[in-house]
């Protein structure tokens, strides 16, 4: 909780110039995770560059040829309740509303949601070893209490999971992240935005120093009719997922034309295996079909002493959520299992 200076940026260019001159500066938008981490003495910004006043990124716009552009500075709540999202991308709305609390969703921005740090206990405790926080110090979670940790894509250096719900839906919807950086603009497909820990767990995503997320673009495929977000956790709301599943289906009768499944709470990024989805193509939308997809999605899953259950739970959640997606109207508040 060091002292810092504060400045507002009037444009992306001005913000980029600032961080170019001051590499220790950090951008702030919603601030809900940044200030949380700063108060735990885990982030030490020298300057905060407030992006909220930058015009042009506060709206949700329909794109030509379908699709939507979600301004990076739109709040999570405004996104979830936006008529275009509620009607056309309800999976995204459901996932956002399963995360955090109403107050936090009113503050947190779309750009910031992608940049949350893990909720691993050991990352959050500045006094214990953690490779994500201090590379090379070791991973306390592997030999410690790892109920909330990864079963997929982890490494010997880090078994933390990425905590976002919104991003699980964005992964399923194949969103594209638009970025403006010191070298200009670029876009990154959602699957490539977050990364696995490997031997550099300190790096959560593909952003480079100074990069600003300007929007998250949704492709034309909406999955507005058959979708479900299921979140399993230690209380019915306001808790991070042990396992969550975003499922989107395109059906013809009971036959699956196209499927998307992404998992949250199980890896360092939203977990998606396109091959698992391809297995569902042309199959009936039944528990058996979803079970096959689940096996593919969970291939190579490895549990630790306290989170072995996640493998079975994830499989059952994928099956159940597939069935729930057939009847989106049965979904309960808080993304709970259907009644």
């Amino acid at each position: 909780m060091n002292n810092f200076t504060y400045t507002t940026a009037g444009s992306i260019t001005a913000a980029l110039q600032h961080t170019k001159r001051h590499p220790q500066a950090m951008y702030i938008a919603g601030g809900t995770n940044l200030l949380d981490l700063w108060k735990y003495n885990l982030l030490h910004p020298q300057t905060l560059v407030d992006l909220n006043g930058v015009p042009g990124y506060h709206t949700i716009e329909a794109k030509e040829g379908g699709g939507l552009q979600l301004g990076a500075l739109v709040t999570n709540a405004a996104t979830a309740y936006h008529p275009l999202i509620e009607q056309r991308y309800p999976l995204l709305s459901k996932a956002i509303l399963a995360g955090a609390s109403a107050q936090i969703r009113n503050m947190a921005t779309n750009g910031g949601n992608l940049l949350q740090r893990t909720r691993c206990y050991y990352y959050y405790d500045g006094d214990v070893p953690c490779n994500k926080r201090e590379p090379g110090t070791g991973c306390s979670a592997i030999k410690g209490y790892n109920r909330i940790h990864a079963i997929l894509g982890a490494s010997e250096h880090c078994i933390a999971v990425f905590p976002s719900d919104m991003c699980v839906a964005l992964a399923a919807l194949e969103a594209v992240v638009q970025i403006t950086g010191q070298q200009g603009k670029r876009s990154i497909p959602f699957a490539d935005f977050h990364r696995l820990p490997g031997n550099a767990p300190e790096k959560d995503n593909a952003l480079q120093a100074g990069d600003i997320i300007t929007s998250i673009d949704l492709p034309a495929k909406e999955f507005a009719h058959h979708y479900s977000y299921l979140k399993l956790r230690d209380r019915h709301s306001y808790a991070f997922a042990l396992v969550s599943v975003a499922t989107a289906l395109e059906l013809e009768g009971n036959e699956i034309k196209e499927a998307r499944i992404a998992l949250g709470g199980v890896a360092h990024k939203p977990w998606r295996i396109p091959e698992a989805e391809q297995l569902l193509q042309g199959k009936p939308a039944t528990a058996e079909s979803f079970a096959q997809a689940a096996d593919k999605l969970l291939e190579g899953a490895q549990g630790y002493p306290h989170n072995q259950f996640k493998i079975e739970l994830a499989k059952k959640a994928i099956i159940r959520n597939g069935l729930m997606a057939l009847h989106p109207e049965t979904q309960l508040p808080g993304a709970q299992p259907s009644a």
Partner: protein
Amino acid sequence: MTNISFTVNGQPRTVTVAPWVSLLDALREHLHLTGTKKGCDHGQCGACTVLCEDKRILSCLTLAVMKNGRSITTIEGIADGEKLHPLQQAFIDHDAFQCGYCTPGQLCSAIGMLHEGKARTREEVKELMSGNLCRCGANVGIIDAIMQVKETYSHE
């Protein structure tokens, strides 16, 4: 130090604070509006909930400097003079608190929620109020009070 001018409970206020002072601490320590409570300082309990232009936010997770020019309503600004807001009266009637410490946050959050107009059923109210913890376990009274007022609360 930065000068911040904003509207608090309908009154224009100016405070001079360091950039790292949270809105919560600015309200409590600089404006002496101690009705807004600190329960965790990390966005995990909801006790510090205030309204920013009718939207409920957590005052612990935002900086005072970021609210320059904005309009903030705290628990001290909910009643109309001596006349309690219907929700305040409903909280008393339903015994929707015991120690009272989470109460300002529960009330501001509930008012924000009614304004949002997204909760239709009791289950939805519970879900959308789940960002406000009550350790005394007054949950049933809190939700009863909100449901009673929700019946009469027209979407304005």
